[in-house]
């Protein structure tokens, strides 16, 4: 207990050592079989399911005294979920926390991958609500497991076919299914498909934790991750006509923000660290100000 503000009476990172060991076994297995969903004994956490219990358990099992933790929610460091999870780990471990992507060793995320490319040695932990990509097509768990075992993934294309038939293009825009290492179909958690290409050959380790569904899966560094598509309807990411109103970025994922009740709106980077970094470098958009 190095930090003065850590809570008395709790083990390092909240979970007891046996639980952390069990989760680490699951993580090791998940890394050994990229994209395969490993069942684990998910514990009750001091926050509700759906708020990131899976991600928190993964983070708690691998965090060490020397780690620097960053937590983001929809790309932002300052939203409720991110603030409370960061606070939770600061109080139960006393490790350093940061909002800067490049100085973090461990990043827990909900629904985004940071814009700044991740490096070797970094670990990205995703919070996953529904780990099974086939769930809406096949409700039986016994059947989806069999489909994974036998690599019968044709039905996933039925969903994409249906998208094109209805909307003229693949309209799935988040939780876009990917094929990991040419073998397992995987749901990348509800990240926008804008982030899918970042998963391919990423130097950082990616871990996925689903607390309610009790599953952990992983993508080891430098693993091939392909987004599913059709030959005549290739995978493509979202594009915006606007740039970020604050930093002027045209290459980042933008959130639309309503700013008045007369239809006024602006687009801003969903990755707050990236946006601030750019503004610090002197970039600014239509509504932003140049750094002093």
């Amino acid at each position: 207990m190095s930090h003065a503000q850590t809570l008395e009476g709790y083990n390092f990172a909240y979970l007891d050592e046996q639980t952390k060991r069990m989760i680490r076994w699951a993580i090791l297995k998940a890394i050994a079989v990229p994209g395969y969903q490993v069942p684990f004994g998910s514990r009750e956490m001091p926050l509700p399911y759906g708020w990131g219990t899976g991600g928190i358990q993964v983070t708690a099992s691998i965090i060490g005294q020397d780690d620097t933790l960053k937590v983001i929610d929809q790309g932002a460091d300052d939203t409720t979920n991110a603030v409370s999870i960061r606070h939770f780990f600061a109080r139960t471990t006393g490790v350093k926390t940061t909002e800067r992507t490049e100085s973090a060793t461990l990043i827990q995320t909900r629904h985004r991958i940071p814009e700044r490319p991740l490096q070797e040695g970094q670990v990205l932990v995703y919070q996953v609500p529904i780990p099974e990509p086939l769930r809406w097509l096949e409700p039986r768990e016994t059947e989806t497991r069999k489909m994974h075992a036998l690599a019968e993934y044709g039905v996933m294309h039925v969903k994409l076919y249906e998208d094109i038939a209805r909307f003229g293009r693949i309209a799935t825009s988040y939780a876009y299914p990917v094929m990991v290492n040419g073998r397992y179909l995987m749901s990348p958690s509800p990240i926008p498909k804008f982030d899918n290409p970042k998963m391919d050959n990423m130097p950082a380790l990616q871990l996925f934790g689903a607390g309610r569904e009790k599953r952990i899966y992983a993508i080891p560094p430098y693993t091939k991750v392909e987004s599913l598509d059709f030959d005549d309807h290739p995978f493509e990411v979202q594009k915006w006509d606007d740039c970020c109103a604050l930093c002027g970025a045209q290459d980042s994922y933008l959130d639309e923000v309503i700013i008045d009740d007369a239809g006024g709106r602006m687009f801003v980077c969903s990755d707050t660290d990236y946006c601030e970094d750019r503004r610090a470098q002197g970039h600014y958009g239509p509504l932003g100000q140049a750094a002093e």
Partner: protein
Amino acid sequence: MMTIDINAAPLLSVQNLGKDYGNLVACTDVSFDLWPGEVLGIVGESGSGKTTLLNCLSAQLAPSRGAVIYDTRVDGPRDILEMTESERRLLMRTDWGLVRQNPRDGLRLGVSAGANVGERLMAVGARHYGDIRAEAANWLQKVEIDVGRIDNVPSTFSGGMQQRLQIARNLVTEPRLVFMDEPTGGLDVSVQARLLDLLRGLVTRLGLSAIIVTHDLAVARLLAHRLMVMRHGRVVEQGLTDQVLDDPQHPYTQLLVSSILQP
């Protein structure tokens, strides 16, 4: 009607097949051969073991004894019960078709007709949207469904259309053997007649082999080349359809044939 090459090897050879549910014998001592291009009808009253037999033949159920040997395209005759599950499932979505009594069991009700027909193509690796869609439209035409309804979900279709859609969905990978469980059950007579006409046309044109379970002797007479009559889980009589229906030998078959209403 196409001719059957009697010198060819049987497509499906069933030997002493039986299935028990605990002490209850659902079907037993069933043996027959099915040749390429042949349509076999299985008739009998409710509870006579027809559907259990069909489920065993199509590897939906594991039989208690016996063997089902299928002449696969690549490896020649093989016992389907000794295949790995992945081989059986591959067979199921390529070389075989299964038309269920209730089209809702055999269709994906949440996705469009086109996706329903295209599913098998995508399952065997088709990845070109335009081609899949063209093939789906082609098959909708073959089963007399208006191509304009390709993007409608099957729940908006009538019972007869759903059944035809189910047939298209099964035939799109050009299977060699189709299992049908009461394909005309629950349809009114005029729709039945059109469906039978369609089925007969498809079976003849594509040279399909089929095993059709039905309790409707009229359906059996129209579609089947050969009939098997089942009672209490046993085959009591088998032979050419006309022979069995016009000159029934077994008392039960005589009863069955004499029970048909003559309008």
